[in-house]
């Protein structure tokens, strides 16, 4: 396993406020890497810097072997992204959304057609293919958004609170998709504030006030903080 994401003292300040404070960490290829923290802890800001949406105030980051700010084009082609707003166009049909993102990532029409067919079959969305996305339940939209983010076979997919607002069962199903992707060798970087989701990650980083205060596997963290579950770990860390 080789390193696929590597940051060095990555920092982002907004005026006097430091949202992300000199974080350094590595993510291995094929890993499901979790970013945990309370709202405002800086996880979304960190993710936005790694995807090139925000320019860091200082520090650097390598993603898929390229510098995020010096070679953004190379990085963009190799990453997928799904935001907490689930990021599909509601007034387009399922099929049109797939075609749009396939087109944006430069896939050929033949490949898009082929991928559309497999994707619809996998998600059992064939009857819904020509319905507007807004008519789908939220859980389906999220699954579809995730599959669309994988359309161009990225090496890394960034998921910013992908399961916010859905019930535990749908969340569980969503994680099955994540595991499947990881099994195919895709690296996944997920932010979440659901502690039960944290257990599903290979490794976790806990963020408090812009800093990474703990980084390890869920098991090791539980040992270290002598906690039964991640929720307790988190509470102990947050209390300081």
């Amino acid at each position, binding site marked *: 396993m080789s390193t696929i994401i590597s940051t060095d003292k990555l920092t982002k300040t907004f005026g006097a406020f430091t949202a992300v404070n000199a974080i350094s960490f590595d993510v291995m290829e094929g890993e499901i890497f979790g970013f945990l923290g309370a709202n405002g802890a800086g996880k979304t800001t960190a993710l936005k810097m790694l995807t090139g949406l925000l320019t860091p105030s200082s520090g650097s980051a390598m993603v898929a072997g390229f510098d995020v700010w010096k070679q953004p084009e190379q990085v963009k082609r190799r990453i997928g992204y799904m935001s907490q707003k689930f990021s599909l*166009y509601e007034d*387009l049909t399922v099929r049109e959304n797939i075609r749009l993102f396939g087109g944006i990532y430069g896939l050929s029409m033949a490949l898009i057609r082929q991928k559309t067919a497999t994707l619809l079959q996998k998600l059992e969305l064939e009857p819904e293919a020509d319905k507007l996305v807004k008519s789908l339940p939220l859980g389906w939209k999220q699954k579809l958004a995730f599959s669309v983010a994988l359309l161009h076979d990225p090496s890394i997919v960034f998921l910013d609170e992908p399961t916010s607002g859905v019930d535990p069962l749908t969340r569980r199903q969503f994680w099955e998709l994540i595991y499947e992707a990881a099994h195919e060798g895709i690296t996944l970087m997920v932010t979440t504030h659901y502690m039960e989701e944290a257990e599903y990650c290979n490794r976790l980083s806990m963020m408090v006030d812009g800093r990474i205060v703990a980084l390890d596997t869920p098991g090791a963290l539980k040992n270290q903080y002598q906690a039964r579950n991640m929720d307790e770990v988190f509470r102990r860390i947050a209390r300081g």
Partner: protein
Amino acid sequence: MNRFSAFIQKEFRHILRDRRTLMILFGMPVIQVLLFGYVLTNEIKNAAIAVLDPAKTEESNALTNKLVSSGYFQLEQNIPSEADLEAAFKSGKVKMAVVFPADFSVSPNKPTDIQLIGDASDPNTATTLINYANAIIADFVQEKALVTGSGNAITSIRTETRMRYNPEQKAVFNFVPGVMTLILMLVSAMMTSITIAREKELGTMEVLLVSPLKPIQIILGKTAPYLALTLLNALVVVLVGIYIFGMPLQGSILLLTAECVLYMFVALSLGILISTKAKDQMTAMFISALGLMMPTMLLSGFIFPRESMPVPLQVIGSVIPATWFNPIIKGIMIKGTGLDVLWKQTAVLGGMALFFLAVSLRNFKDRL
């Protein structure tokens, strides 16, 4: 290229599937031109007047007839005494009253007075009516003087007036160009700012920015469809002006089209600039309406003449694109003017386009 065309296709789908957008795009222009053309005319026909004529001489009758036969006035009532004037105005039935003196006669040696009373609760109409009546009375006096041969040097000068380019003084000649400045600004600036703000609000802008699309491609993809539709709109407005309201098109169609495209570029870049500042669609709409529509309507000289504005407002007006675009369309359509005269306005618009585009592109990168 596949990337870009997929993006444009999506943009057209957004437009075609949103009834509100469609209404603004295609309903508004036609409705506005028709409204301005039919309702907001300042021509006056058959305004009701009252006449108070205690003299009842041949001359006073002749003058009353001349006023009424001009087509501008219609004799609503003859008023017996001054006391009844008030009631006539209050009832709102008459817009103007002509009061003859008891000893009315037109003779060069003895000056006589006629009183014109206007209903200035509507000052514009009152002024126009009084002006018309004055002109007709002056004409009457001159005719009289010539017929009797008793005219002195002053009354024997006859002024002959010609209203060039718009002999019938149709208000529509002013409104069609005005509406064009408004519509093109509305559609280009407001619609682009709203459509970009919508992507930000929905979170899809992030997804686009993470994709291999370059910011400039995103902007072009968002604006190109609106550019095409706005051009179509301009065409509709011009056609309505020509075929329904009898506007001429004296100058070059090519030049008119090119100038429209230039103006749209200014408007589009303003729209992009607004969208970089606005977080959501409501804000974008609000800024566009207040910051662009109102000044375009009120300060560009479309409705109120710029010459009579206080200097600070004139200065503000001079940075509004429509102020420069309005004379261009009027020149081309009504007078047949070419670039040899309109180069200055064109250059100002060109400068504005470059400036706003540069600023908004820089902002676009910084903000998102």
